[in-house]
Structure formats: structure tokens, C-alpha cells
């Protein structure tokens, strides 16, 4: 197990910049999830850590060793692919030992490692089967087993659950979390699924257009997104945004007004009269009421019932926002309703999209 340090990493394909000055430091034993929309460069970053793609500039250190010039196998990494990438003409045992032959692991040691990985992943019964005879979940476990027997310094997972069906995805997710605890391994995990990111990660790295937008603990990202992109990306349904403007600043309080909601009082901080702002409120923080720090009124246009809660799409001033309504009492379409939120649940971003409201982390709540 080892730490991983990435400094000023860039990747360009001709004129296209895929990764732009990425800096990331991962501690020994940490589970870090790279998350972002497709094309944000997260998979490229993973492949560059693995050594499958070269860097245009910048340094990668694994366990304190500069690895840019090393081949994948010499970096002490093991990668699990979305497509599993099992060798189809080899049985499970051979799939796991094939690579070890070339890295100088003696046969007895190979057997020991396979036996241990098989026990950990419940693959004992399957060792003599071929990949074509395995189910998707079993194949993924074999792929993970193949990574474990290499005893790598860093595990790299490239969207490992994307090809599994919903139920299997949940159980495999739990299994990966357990595995991380048992192995105490350093893991870098790529996904576009924010639920996977939130549930698995010690820290999440949110990427967009080749840049890191924010690095933080899952709940920090949820409660204190650093910018509009992270605010919109983490959370489902996405955060509601309202355009707003600072109307007046008096005695340390800023009075903010905008389309779609009643006025809002904030701590002034560095705000000046006339500043353009974006106000964000998560659907799950909106409740029906009359008076609150934040209040928006509108007509319910559509209701999606999920069972434990419902999503109400509310129209106000020509725009729609979403509120998650808990309980059996769901609003009816056409109904006029007022939704309020506490001030700690209101996120304010400046014109450049950066957060200006105070950081309310989970600890301070």
C-alpha cells in the first residue's frame, strides 16, 4: 500500500486539452473516487496513473517513486476494467496467475495468493471455470481477484460496476467497500455515478472539462459545494438555481432579490450592491410552509411519486424548480404552494460561479 502524488499533470491530444494542470495527493489507504460527466478526463487520469497513457507534462509519484517513465507493471498498480477484460481462453485460476508468471512470483506463492483472493471473493468454486460460464457479477469478482493477487501499491478501478444490473451493482458496491476495509488498500476509483462516489469514497474528486473542480469528503461536497458545477453535479435531483442580485447592504446584512423567490437576507461578507449572484437550494431542503429565510411560491405543475417521497415540479415566474416532498401528503398538480428553506441550506455563488455563502459542513450543523 502506498500514497500517490500527482503534480501539474497535463494531457493534450493535438490542440485538445484533456487534462489541465491536475494536482492530487492521495494518502496511504485512502479510497478516492474520481467523478464527473463523461468526457471530463477522469478515465484518462486513471489510465495515466496506470501508465497506459503518457502524460504531456507533469509528474506522477507512487509510494514516493517517480513513475512517469515506468511501464504499467513496474508502477505497482493493478487495474480493474469496466469490461472486466478477462482472458477468455483461460480459466479463472489462470486468469489470476497469468500475470504473476512474468513478475517473478514463485508457483507456490502464486497458489497461496490465488487461494486467499478466492476465499476473500468467494471464488473457490469457480476457479476451474471459464469466463464465458460466469455471470456478470462473478466476472467482476474475478477481475478484482486478478488485481488483488498482484498485491499492488494502488488499486485502480475504471467504472467497475457500470456493466452490472441495478441489484448486483448495490451488492458489489458493498463488497468493494468491505474489501477496502480488509485490504486497507489505496484505491482510485472512477465513476460517473454519484451514488457510488458518495457511498464508497473517503474523498471525492469532482472533475469537469479536464480540471478538478473540488476535492473533499462526500458530505462536504454535498453541504458546501465550492462552485456551481459541483453544486449541480452532486445530489439528485440536481440543486435548484435562481438568478439574483444584491439589492442593498446594511449593518452586515445583504438583502438579495431575484426571479422565482421572495427576498433573502444574508450575511454581507464581501457582497456589494448590484452584485449578480446565483442562489441554490437542494430539492430535499425545500419544505412546504409559509415563512422562512428562503421562500418561493408557485403552482405545482407535475408530481413524480417515488413512494417514500415525491418530486414536485413547481412553476414560478416562467421557470421550474423541484422540491422533494416527504410523506403521504403529496401536493396535487395545479395547487398553489409556498416552499421554504433554512438559511444554512441556501447556497450562494458569485457571478464567476464560486461559493460565497459560509461553509456549513456537517460538523457545524
Amino acid at each position, binding site marked *: 500500500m502506498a500514497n500517490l502524488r500527482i503534480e501539474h499533470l497535463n494531457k493534450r491530444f493535438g490542440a485538445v486539452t484533456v487534462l489541465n494542470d491536475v494536482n492530487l495527493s492521495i494518502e496511504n489507504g485512502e479510497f478516492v473516487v474520481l467523478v464527473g460527466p463523461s468526457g471530463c478526463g477522469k478515465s484518462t487520469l486513471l*489510465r495515466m496513473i*496506470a*501508465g*497506459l497513457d503518457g502524460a504531456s507534462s507533469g509528474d506522477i509519484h507512487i509510494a514516493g517513486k517517480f513513475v512517469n517513465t515506468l*511501464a*504499467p*507493471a*513496474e508502477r505497482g*498498480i*493493478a*487495474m480493474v*476494467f*469496466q*469490461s*472486466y*477484460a*478477462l*482472458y*477468455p*481462453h483461460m480459466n479463472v485460476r489462470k486468469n489470476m496467475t*497469468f*500475470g504473476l508468471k*512474468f*513478475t517473478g512470483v514463485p508457483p507456490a506463492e502464486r497458489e497461496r495468493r490465488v487461494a486467499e483472493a478466492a476465499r476473500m471473493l468467494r471464488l473457490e468454486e469457480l476457479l476451474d471455470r*471459464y*469466463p*464465458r*460460464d*460466469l455471470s*456478470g457479477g462473478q*466476472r467482476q469478482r474475478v477481475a478484482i481477484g*486478478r488485481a488483488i493477487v*498482484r498485491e499492488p501499491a494502488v488499486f485502480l478501478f475504471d467504472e467497475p460496476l457500470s*456493466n452490472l444490473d441495478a441489484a448486483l451493482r448495490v451488492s458489489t458496491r458493498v463488497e468493494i467497500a468491505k474489501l477496502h476495509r480488509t485490504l486497507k488498500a489505496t484505491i482510485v476509483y472512477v465513476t460517473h455515478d454519484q451514488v457510488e462516489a458518495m457511498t464508497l469514497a473517503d474523498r471525492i474528486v469532482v472533475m469537469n472539462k479536464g480540471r478538478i473542480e473540488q476535492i473533499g469528503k462526500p458530505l462536504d461536497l454535498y453541504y458546501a459545494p465550492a462552485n456551481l458545477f459541483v453544486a449541480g453535479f452532486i445530489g439528485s435531483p440536481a440543486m435548484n438555481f435562481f438568478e439574483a442580485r444584491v439589492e442593498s447592504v446594511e449593518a452586515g446584512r445583504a438583502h438579495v432579490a431575484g426571479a422565482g423567490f421572495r427576498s433573502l437576507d444574508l450575511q454581507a461578507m464581501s457582497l456589494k450592491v448590484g452584485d449578480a449572484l446565483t442562489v441554490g437550494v437542494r430539492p430535499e431542503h425545500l419544505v412546504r410552509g409559509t415563512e422562512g429565510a428562503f421562500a418561493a411560491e408557485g403552482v405545482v405543475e407535475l408530481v413524480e411519486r417515488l413512494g417514500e417521497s415525491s418530486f414536485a415540479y413547481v412553476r414560478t415566474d416562467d421557470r421550474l424548480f423541484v422540491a422533494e416532498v416527504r410523506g403521504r401528503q403529496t401536493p396535487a398538480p395545479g395547487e398553489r404552494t409556498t416552499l421554504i428553506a433554512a438559511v444554512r441550506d441556501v447556497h450562494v455563488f458569485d457571478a464567476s460561479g464560486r461559493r460565497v455563502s459560509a461553509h456549513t459542513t456537517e460538523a457545524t450543523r
Partner: protein
Amino acid sequence: MTVEQRARSLGVHLVLIAYSALAVGPILIVVMNSFKARNAIFGAPLAPPNASTFSLIGYEKVLRTSNILTYYSNSLVVTLVSVALVLLFGAMAAWALTEYRFRGSTALALFLSIGIMVPIRLGSVAILNLMRSAGLNDTLTALILVYVAQGLPMSIFILSEFIQQIPKDLRDAARCDGVPESRIFFEVVAPLLRPAIATVAVFTIVPIWNDLWFPLILTSSDATHTVTLGVQQFLGQYITDWNSVLAALSMAILPVVVIYVILSRQLISGLTSGAVK
């Protein structure tokens, strides 16, 4: 199935059956008549051999009077060695051209594909001169070299297509596993190319086995003749020994059929199933 569908499928089958009969008919007549006495061949060419017309005289004469076994072994050696080399070099070249980007790789691929467009026979005179000055005239080596050159372009072309279909993750996984590049090719990629290799083998073997042109110009002694060339000695300008010709031809068909049957078992597609997804 509706009446219309049934009629259509019947029509399709009729066309296919007619075509098969057309293709198989002459071969059947050759094989049938090779087991008949000379009179019967001319008397009733379309009749199968019966008790009174059955005769192995053709086979006897061929085996007794000619060096058919030498021709046979020559053909086998030339064909099998050529095919083995075409497959080995073809697969390696296809792998290199599809997997690695290097200076001149596109130019090299274009150069190799010229061989598909230009028939090698156009170079017969040059090849003859080349072989003579290399001291390879009248040797099986000369034939093998020519056939390898003839078979390579197409095999590279076909195998490149197949290699591109092998999931890239598989090679990446092998690289992460620490498998050396040569072993990735021989132990990961090559086994998955088996159906493609069988296809290429069939396409390569048949024209080599049946070739008359290059044995004719490159071999002169009995010791280096191949079957197709050897058979010609029974076809005289004035007299043709039909018993021997038909017997020799029937024997010449046999190995190709056997090889085809063996390889067709290998033409199992979907070998990669289970690798990904």
C-alpha cells in the same frame, strides 16, 4: 409460415441446390469415373461405377508408373510451410500495424496492401531471374518464398480487421499484469484469432495447392514437381490416359477436403464471448 414465405424459401433453396449441383457435379463425375474401366468412362460417362465397370486401373497406373507420392509430398510440404509462414508473419505484421503507431506505419500498411491489388504473376519473369541468381531454381524453397509473398497481403488485411475487434481493454489488462509485449501477442491475442486464422488458412491453402503456374516455371525436375504439375504428364498432345488423369485428380482433391474439414471445426465464432461484458 405463410404460403408466400414458404414459396420464397422454396425458391431460394431451389437456386442454392441448383448451384450446388453445378459446382459439385464435375467433381463427382471425376471421382466416379476414376473408379471405372476405360471403356466405361467413354461408354457411359455419367453412370456410377457398377460391378462390371468398376476398376482401380487408374490408381494402379498412377501409383506404379509415376512419382505421384513425391509430387504429393512436395505439394504438402510447400503448402503447409507456406501457410504456416503466412499465418505467423501475417498475424505479427497485422498486430504491429494495428497496435503500434510508428514512423511510416501508414506507408508500410499501404505498401503491403499493394500486394492485394497487383497479381504476383505479373512479376513472374523477375521472380524467375531472382530465383535463378539466388541459386534457388528448381527447389521447393523458391515455391515457398513465392507463395508466402502471395499470401501475406490478404492475410494481413483480414487479420488486421479481426485484431481491431479484440477489446483494447484486454491488451491493457495484460500490460497492467506485466505480460511482455511478445507474450501479449502469442498468449492473449493469437488464441483469440483462431477463427480468423482458420479463415485465412483456408483462403491461403486452396490457391497454393491448386497452383500450376509457379511449379511450371520454377521447377523443372521430377523431384520438385507438385501434384497439379505431375498430373499434366498424363495429358498428352495426342493421347490422354484418362484413367490415370482422373485417378490422380481425385487423389489431389483429397488433402484439401481433409484440411478444410479440420479447419472448419476451428471456424467457431464467438470465442471472445465472456471476455468482456
